[in-house]
């Protein structure tokens, strides 16, 4: 009888436990199904989004820690995966790699162009220039002229005589303006003559090109002191080039006893092959030109 009582107690306990389990199970199932249904039907449900966002914020340090800890082991798994790679997947990867390399080269080119254009924009802002951007599309091929061709012309408001500069320094002057292109004579051209001055001492002179492409600052009296390394900028005289545009740096100064002028050789900042985009200065403001006292100073030299 005691045995039967013990067995019935056990059975009633089991039935109670089973009932408890069933209740708990149905409750959890119900909530799970509600959650799944709401999440599937309303992916942007505010409460779930907020919960996920808060969870992600709280667990982010753990994820970062895990990434740091497991970084050395990921290489080992890649080795294992690579050992079982098929010929087809290798061929596919090789062609994808070639495409990516080409794309990378294009992007690198675009990045460099963006950098050059940014420098031009900075130059325009720094000197407060009214300018138009243009690309160099051709360079002179004969030995007698030192010119470039740009892709803007009269249709873009350009005209002959306008100054052209790059982010590095002064380039030249438009000598021929067509509808959609223009020819620019470089400052190194033998026919070129730019009114320039030594930036530090304000000594005025004329920067002239040559057949060899060498730049020479002329009309500087021997009583003046010019040192190697001095910066040469445009003087603004003549109304062609704005004042203060960098042109180059003095690389040689020679003084001949029989001459009244110094022989000053200047190395241009804008080398003939160093730019692909240029700024055409479309109009000069009052501040771009030399002041009256600067003109007097030049005439007195």
């Amino acid at each position, binding site marked *: 009888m005691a045995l039967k009582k013990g067995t019935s107690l056990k059975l009633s306990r089991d039935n109670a436990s089973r009932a408890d389990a069933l209740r708990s199970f149905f409750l959890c199932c119900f909530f*799970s199904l509600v959650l799944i249904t709401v999440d599937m039907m309303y992916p942007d449900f505010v409460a779930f989004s907020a919960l996920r966002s808060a969870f992600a914020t709280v667990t982010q340090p753990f*994820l970062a820690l895990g990434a740091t800890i497991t970084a050395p082991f990921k290489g080992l798994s890649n080795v294992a995966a690579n050992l079982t790679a098929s010929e087809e997947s290798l061929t596919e990867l090789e062609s994808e790699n070639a495409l990516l390399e080409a794309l990378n080269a294009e992007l690198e080119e675009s990045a460099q162009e963006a950098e050059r254009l940014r420098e031009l924009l900075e130059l325009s802002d720094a000197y407060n220039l009214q300018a138009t951007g243009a690309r160099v599309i051709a360079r002179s091929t004969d030995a007698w002229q030192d010119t470039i061709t740009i892709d803007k012309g009269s249709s873009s408001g350009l005209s002959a005589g306008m100054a052209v500069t790059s982010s590095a320094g002064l380039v030249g002057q438009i000598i021929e303006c067509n509808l959609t292109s223009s020819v620019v004579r470089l400052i190194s051209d033998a026919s070129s003559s730019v009114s320039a001055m030594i930036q530090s001492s304000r000594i005025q002179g004329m920067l002239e090109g040559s057949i060899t492409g060498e730049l020479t600052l002329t009309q500087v009296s021997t009583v003046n002191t010019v040192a190697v390394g001095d910066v040469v900028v445009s003087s603004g005289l003549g109304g062609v080039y704005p004042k203060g545009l960098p042109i180059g740096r003095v690389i040689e100064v020679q003084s001949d006893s029989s001459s009244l002028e110094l022989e000053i050789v200047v190395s241009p900042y804008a080398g003939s092959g160093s730019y692909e985009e240029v700024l055409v200065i479309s109009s000069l403001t009052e501040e771009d030109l030399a002041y009256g006292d600067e003109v007097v100073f030049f005439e007195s030299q």
Partner: protein
Amino acid sequence: MDYMLQTGSGKQNAGKYTAIAAAVCIVLQLVLAPHLGFLSGFINFSLLFAAFVVMCSQETVSIFLAFFAGLFYDLCASEPLGLMALCLCVAAFVYRLLRLGTQSFTSALLYLDFLWMAALVLLLWYIALGLLGLAQSVPALIINSFLPAFLVNALCFCPFWYVLSRLNSQNRRLNIGPRSGAPDLK
């Protein structure tokens, strides 16, 4: 073993082991689980925790703990909230029904129980993903993801299995009171 932990000190031990297992599984799920896996199978520490707590204590609360473990996994993953919670509480309930009244457990039985629980959870999970349209091919998913996940989780359950085996052997040596299953001879 489950009835051993129904006594006063046994309940405290169950609570202690459950808390430790929860802390360990939460940290491992966040730190290691996203980065370590075998082929397409990743470790599911929520599954390991739910199986451990269900086998450690057959209180009704173990089903709720399995549910919340599944919710935690759903928050970690990008699948619908409540999906793993549903799978784990189904497995916990089935285990409770099957093992209710079982007097003694061997180590082998503990591990076999985990294997079928894991298989049930993972099958339900991948079938649900297919039914919800979140996976393209259920058979391919079962072959490519289920088997690696099953194997990797079976391997990672070994430390939990060791702890359960130790608890089981300790409780056999203690052989505590009427709830051991022995009849009350009053």
